[in-house]
């Protein structure tokens, strides 16, 4: 069945896909998508570590931290997208190089 190691490797690969978006893309919407993927990856790693291999039970408590992370991630994403829309109204662009200073 689904083992801890599979889930952890899935988490690592997804984290790296998100990191690739952060490092290589200039579109701010894509960067925010990368941040979302990274958050999901971290949640997956947390859940995978919550499984107790010794007696094959799943620790319900292990789902609480990812829940907090999801709530905070929702707030972060809402603020980020609001900044994107405001900057687009201001500078007519969603390029991250254009909004380096956030003023003008």
């Amino acid at each position, binding site marked *: *069945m*689904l083992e*801890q*190691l*599979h*889930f*952890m*490797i*899935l988490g*690592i*690969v*997804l*984290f*790296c*896909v*998100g*990191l*690739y*978006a952060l*490092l*290589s*893309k*200039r*579109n701010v*919407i*894509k960067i*925010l*998508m*990368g941040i*979302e*993927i990274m958050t*999901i990856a971290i*949640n*997956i790693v947390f*859940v*995978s570590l*919550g*499984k*107790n*291999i*010794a007696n094959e039970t*799943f620790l*319900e408590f*292990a*789902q609480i931290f*990812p*829940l907090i992370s*999801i709530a905070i991630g*929702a707030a972060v*994403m*809402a603020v980020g*997208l609001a900044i*994107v*829309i405001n900057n*687009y109204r201001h500078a007519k*662009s*969603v*390029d991250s190089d254009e909004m*380096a*200073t956030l003023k003008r």
Partner: protein
Amino acid sequence: MMSLVIIYVFMILAILAAVFAIECRRLMFSVIGLIAMNAFIWILLLLYNATLLAWIQLIVYGGGFTALFVVVVALTEKQRDELFDWKRSVIALVIIAIIVGFAIWAVISSSGYLPFGTFEIIESIELLWSERVMDLILQAIVFFATSIAIGTLFISHKKKVKKEAEA
């Protein structure tokens, strides 16, 4: 055996959907890729018996964030994604290859070790110090790299302001 094959298929599909979401040039299709990725991860979490998290993840990420992204993409509709930037992508891929290699090595080399049964803080710190020294070192590296990055940001911003003033 059969179930393991299904799990591998869903894992690969989730990763491919994430790559599609990042690499697709039309932003609306990127959002569809995100929805697909969330659906595959929902299935995987259900297979892992994390029912509560699976449903909340589907509702919040698959539903709420997607709606937000659709609204933002619709409001910035004329903006297409930029052309493929080779230089940036190659540098990013090199950095990520190093991180992936190191992370997978660390996971596989420590998979036989299970830290459970620690209830007190001092016990956990002793465990960290004796069994997971590499974690501490990596945390220190990440901390210093972040502080250096923030410092360089400020320095380059100051230089830019100086140049503008001179011009």
